[in-house]
């Protein structure tokens, strides 16, 4: 789907260097788990991949081309919170993605086309285990259900790269295991490239085909902001031995 190449990337906020000398080559369909200490720049790295911000130095190439300057439908995202729209119910949230895809000018479909989008959205919701909650507003959904909704919404545009920033950070361990099953199944089915930030090392090794560790290699005790983090370890995960949560574990929303 999409190869990604990061060349000598730096990110500085004023005098504070957050990321430095980041180099990375990611093949099509890889599942990269990003780990590292809090504040080391993992979310910043995802924001750069999203084009939400621009690196101060270096380039990011997608399929050999520089990244577009704005976020776009080629890169989907699920944040830890605020990923779905509170004024739309579950099925409308997913259908919005289809409406924008089919009517980019108005962002709204009418009549038959709208009904078609809504029923497609219902199928997608059922696929992530939210079939029973189509008419619920996000405020009426539990944390796990909101993240399922956010995933369905992000996938509705069929992004080539999916960026996940601690998507399961706020969920209890049981729900988390179900979500692991869901995301690895969707990843296998779509073949998209995934970047997932997590604080849970077991999660990183259970899901990722690669685990990227962000850390600082240089420290200046006088000026903690002088040096940034980079990718210190790039660990391939052998899929044949690691335990991928099976589809049977994921069913039904909490």
């Amino acid at each position, binding site marked *: 789907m999409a190869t990604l190449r990061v060349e000598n990337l730096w990110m500085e906020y004023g005098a504070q260097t957050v990321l430095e000398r980041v180099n990375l080559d990611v093949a099509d369909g890889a599942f990269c788990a990003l780990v590292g200490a809090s504040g080391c720049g993992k979310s910043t790295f995802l924001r750069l991949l*999203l084009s*939400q911000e621009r690196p101060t130095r270096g380039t990011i190439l997608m399929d050999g081309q520089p990244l577009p300057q*704005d*976020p*776009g*439908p080629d*890169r*989907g*995202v699920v*944040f830890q*919170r*605020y*990923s*779905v*729209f*509170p*004024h*739309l*119910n579950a099925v409308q949230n997913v259908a*919005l*993605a289809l*409406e*924008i*895809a089919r009517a*980019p*000018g*108005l*962002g*709204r479909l009418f009549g038959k086309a709208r009904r078609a989008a809504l029923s497609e959205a219902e199928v997608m919701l059922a696929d992530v285990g939210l079939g029973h909650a189509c008419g619920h*507003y*996000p*405020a*009426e*959904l539990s944390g796990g259900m*909101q993240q399922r909704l956010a995933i369905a*919404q*992000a996938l*509705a*545009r069929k*992004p080539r790269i999916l960026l996940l920033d601690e998507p399961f950070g706020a969920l209890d361990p049981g729900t988390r295991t179900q979500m692991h099953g869901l995301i690895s199944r969707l990843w296998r089915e779509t073949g998209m490239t995934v970047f997932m930030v997590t604080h849970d090392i077991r999660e990183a090794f259970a899901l990722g085909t690669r685990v990227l560790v962000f850390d600082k290699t240089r420290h200046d005790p006088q000026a903690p902001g002088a040096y940034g983090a980079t990718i210190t370890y790039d660990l391939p995960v052998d899929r044949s031995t690691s335990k991928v949560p099976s589809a049977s574990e994921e069913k039904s929303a909490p």
Partner: protein
Amino acid sequence: MRRLINLRPSRQGTFFLGALPFAIVLVIYFVFSSLRLAENPADKLMPAFSTMGEAIVRVAAEPEQRSGTIVLWADTGASLVRLALGLGIATAIGLVFGILNGLIVYARVTLAPFVGVLSMVPPMALLPILFIMLGLEETSKVALIVIGVAPYLMRDLALRVEELPGEQLVKAQTLGASTWVIVARVVLPQILPRLIDGLRLSLGPAWLFLIAAEAIASTEGLGYRIFLMRRYMAMDVILPYVAWITFLAAISDWVLVQISRRAFGWAHLGRGA
């Protein structure tokens, strides 16, 4: 002994307690009015309820001899049209500039300082200028309401737009939404409930500006009437008029609350998502 903060009245109790202050005020008025009238039957300051009743019939049910119109309804119609026009135009301006200033950085840096200074100008100080430039007719009265209300709505809505989580705007872009689609499908629907709240809070100032403008230059309208009646010390008309204005304001507030509940149910679900 239970703590005071945990005590709750029953349904009837709630109704009774809510009605109590009204009853007390009416009783006090009645007592003092009767005392004054017993001393001087021609006293105009605190007319009896019966006198007010007659005055109400006179203005609300009988056509005035000279114009042939029923005064109360003509006044009410004139005032409500001005109010609706003023609030409607202020709403449109507030929405357009609120979204522009809240969402588009270029618009914000261009307009925010200007709007900031402009909203410091006391609207009443502009009234003479409006009368000179727009004449004494409807336009200047509507304009005063717009000038008095629009800056508040504009800034309130801009703040609400800025409060929207940045994640939502990024998310919309990853779904392929253009700036326009983000406005139409993400921003506007989410600030409409806030617009209604803003309008509710603006009703008071809007009436204030309306009555002020009508008092100074008008030939009909609720504000015009009470200031006209002041010359004759006709408290029997002024008091019912004030009650009527209060009632109209309360009804508009109630209608806005109902619209918000019906149309924006999601906003009343508590902090969502």
